[in-house]
């Protein structure tokens, strides 16, 4: 895998910190929740930015593979992904929601791609002669397909959960002053 598609060591360290603090907070350790909140506030924007970058580059690779060198198909797929992203993310999504949307879209495209790959392998006929991969490799693709599909479903579920969570916390607080005493 190319280096630009990997999360940097610095970001990995931040993720590790978030993971450890989540564990501690889940276990009910005193003060861990406050620490976690601080870590989320400090590191989430940067990690989200890095992950969004990976998502964007990953999309380009997936689109390129699915289009197979056809520029029209490439454009169509790109537009389709943009549309999906808008539909799923909705209006003014939070950075985390936007990232989760990217995850759903990536998983969807990968599921479609792997499905196309396996369908092609299951075809028979003269045109498929010498194009079949060995069974061991086909098994591997099936495994990838299965785990990607599972990830796709989880990604959608998590997005819904985060949305529900964020709905409960108002972003803007309105204070209205009412004067009851008449002059």
């Amino acid at each position, binding site marked *: *895998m190319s280096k630009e*598609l*990997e*999360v940097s060591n610095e*970001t990995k360290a931040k*993720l590790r910190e*978030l*993971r450890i*603090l*989540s564990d501690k*907070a*889940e276990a009910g350790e005193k003060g861990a*929740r406050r620490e*976690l*909140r601080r*870590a*989320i506030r400090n590191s*989430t924007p940067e*990690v*989200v930015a*890095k*992950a969004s970058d*990976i*998502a964007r*580059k*990953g999309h380009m*690779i*997936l689109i390129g*593979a699915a289009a197979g060198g056809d520029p029209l198909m490439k454009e169509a797929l790109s537009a389709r992904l943009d549309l999906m992203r808008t539909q799923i993310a909705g209006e003014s999504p939070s950075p*985390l929601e936007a*990232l*989760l949307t*990217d*995850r759903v879209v*990536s*998983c969807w495209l*990968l599921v479609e*791609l*792997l499905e196309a*790959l396996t369908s092609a392998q299951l075809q028979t006929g003269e045109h498929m002669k010498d194009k079949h*991969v*060995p069974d*061991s*490799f086909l098994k*591997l*693709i099936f495994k*990838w397909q299965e785990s*990607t599909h599972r*990830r796709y479903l989880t*990604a959608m579920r*998590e997005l819904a*959960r*985060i949305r529900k*969570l964020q709905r*409960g*916390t108002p972003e803007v607080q309105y204070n209205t002053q009412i004067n009851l005493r008449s002059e």
Partner: protein
Amino acid sequence: MGWENRERGGRYYTRSRKVDGRVVREYVGGGLIGELAARFDEAEREKRKVEAAMVHLERARVEALVVPVVELYEVTEVLCRAALVDGGYRRYQGKWRRKREQRT
């Protein structure tokens, strides 16, 4: 696997394969039969080599598609989990549940 020189003179083609974890040698023969078996095995070996190279290439191609998605998935997973724990969720038997509000 290969040709053996016999003490009486002449060559003999043998094959070795694993049966239940033990190496078993199969004595094929000398002369034309041995020659044909050797060529057949050579062709099989070549075919397997080409197949392995193809699988290696295909695997790298598919992995290049899968890995960025997995990477994105894992990063998002950590962020999601942190947000959920911070938001009062906890995992119960692998499922996320909202903690009950404490009564005051």
